[in-house]
């Protein structure tokens, strides 16, 4: 029953994960921080990819739920005195509720209209964060109370492991989702909504599901970021942040593995281009253009380019 190839694949992955888990032993805090940001990027990209890569719905406003997650965690602790984990849980619930409400009108839009609608929502959240000074601290930002666990102040290493575990969990959840009837339904919606409807799929309901999971993952990433960084301000959630999200799924490729690669790549890219003093944005742009020109279907798209005639989505068969 056991497939030798599969066993080897799982062993390899397990080994790599074990290596990653040992990271805190080898690197200093700065690189751990990078690893944490990469992990958050992976979580964010996985959620966004569910909506964009699999369901075909453009979301140009990830900053909205990232901010909601971050501010909820920050405010619930700072103003309501709740503990971190409780705040995070409530933040997720808030994100889900907001997603359910906003998805009703939003998902009736298509293509560029949807892109703009989601962007509009993100800008509105950003503007509210700036405008409501008394509540959110406005453009000056908000300090997040430090987390104290069992008498010890939670440090970078703690957040690293937290993000690692959550990233793996999110990946597994997405992997299962995609290999199931839900994943198939989402892809059907992406390909042809009328045919999906005729096959008994409640298109609106599934779109909302994908949107809500996206919101959940994004808010999770935002909440952990807020706690780890210790300080948040609206500037972090501006228009450019939305772009980062889109870049992750486009550069990585429209699959779960693509999200992992894209998430890490986009989060780490600024580190590489810092070297080009003064011209780092130009370098960033140049790298982007080159990547997209030569790998228009993303990095994982290139790997699969040779097998284009066969299906790109062999459900449940491979980790890709």
């Amino acid at each position, binding site marked *: 029953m056991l497939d030798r190839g599969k066993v080897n694949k799982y062993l390899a992955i397990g080994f790599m994960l074990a290596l990653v888990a040992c990271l805190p032993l080898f690197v200093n805090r700065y690189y751990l921080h990078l690893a944490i940001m990469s992990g958050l990027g992976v979580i964010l990209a996985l959620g966004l990819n569910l909506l964009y890569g699999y369901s075909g719905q453009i979301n140009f406003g990830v900053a909205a739920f990232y901010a909601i997650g971050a501010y909820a965690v920050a405010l619930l602790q700072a103003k309501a005195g709740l503990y971190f984990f409780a705040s995070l849980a409530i933040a997720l619930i808030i994100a889900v509720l907001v997603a359910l409400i906003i998805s009703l009108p939003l998902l009736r839009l298509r293509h560029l209209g949807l892109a*703009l609608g989601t962007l509009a929502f993100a*800008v509105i959240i950003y503007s509210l964060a700036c405008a409501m000074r008394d509540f959110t601290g406005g453009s000056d930002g908000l300090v997040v109370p430090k987390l104290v666990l069992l008498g010890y102040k939670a440090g970078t290493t703690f957040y690293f492991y937290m993000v690692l575990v959550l990233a793996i969990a999110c990946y597994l959840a997405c992997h299962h989702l995609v290999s199931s009837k839900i994943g198939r339904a989402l892809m059907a919606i992406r390909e042809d909504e009328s045919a999906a409807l005729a096959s008994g799929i409640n298109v609106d309901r599934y779109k909302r599901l994908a949107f809500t999971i996206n919101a959940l993952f994004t808010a999770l990433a935002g909440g952990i970021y807020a706690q780890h960084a210790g300080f948040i301000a609206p500037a972090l959630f501006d228009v450019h942040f939305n772009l980062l999200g889109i870049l992750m799924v486009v550069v990585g490729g429209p699959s779960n593995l693509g999200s992992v690669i894209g998430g890490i790549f986009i989060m780490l890219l600024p580190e590489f281009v810092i070297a080009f003093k*003064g011209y780092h*944005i130009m370098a960033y*742009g140049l790298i982007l253009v080159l990547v997209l020109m030569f790998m228009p*279907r993303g990095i994982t798209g290139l790997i699969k380019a040779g097998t284009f005639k066969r299906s790109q989505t062999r459900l449940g068969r491979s980790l890709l």
Partner: protein
Amino acid sequence: MDIFFLTLFTGVCVGFIYGLIAFSLTAVYNVCGVLNFVQGECFMGGAAIGFFLMTQLDLPFSLTLLVILVATGILGFLTNYVLVSPLLGRRTPLITVIVATIGATMLISGGIGGITEWRWMPVHPLISGAWHLGSLTIMPSYVVIILTAVVVVTGYWLFENKTIYGMALRATGINRAMAELVGIQVPSMIALAFVIGSIIAGITGIVVAPVITPHPIMGMHYLLLGFISAVVGGLGNAYGSMIGGLILGLLGIVISSYVFPVYADIATFVLLLIVLVARPKGLFAR
């Protein structure tokens, strides 16, 4: 009362700025479905060239305008030739193509920013002094903006309806398959659209520069506002996007003046959401 008229006047001007950018975006979008973010940089580039040539080198406006026409035209052509058309040919999803243009945007604004060390690039008014109309004081630069918008729209209308190339371009925008059938070279039309759109954006840039303080990263900001105007006005309709711009401009200025400025953004985007949900195709879509 004077303040009211001035507010209105400013709102109309700002509206025309957004409208012009929206106009240039729609011209390209109609033909190939791509939202060319690089046109935001053409806008910024127009102002930047004005800064380099007029402010720093004291060269005359006519020369500057010529350089802008050539530079943005070439930029538009290159954007299409190197980036957009090859990607479209490989049947890349439109979002990816648009993201690629965003990458090119960073390339350009990053380049200009690096050169100017991220400093402001002020451009002096083309016509100095102020005009007085009764008790109102009007800056000539604002009038120039309005005139430019009128000239561009009229010129484009004449082009679309009275010249062979214009009519071919219009036909391609309406129905690409049919256009191909009657022998129109669609790739050339796309290239033409890119060049025209970029040039319009560049002209807008130099004309607007005296009125704002240009900065290397302003391209994206204006592009987004132009994009919103285009969507509000209806993406298929270039002239509608001009009206979309006016609505956006007026709304923004009015709310800025009579309510808190910080709510201007929120109001703009709430308006956008309402329009999108009520009429997903925009107000004047074809």
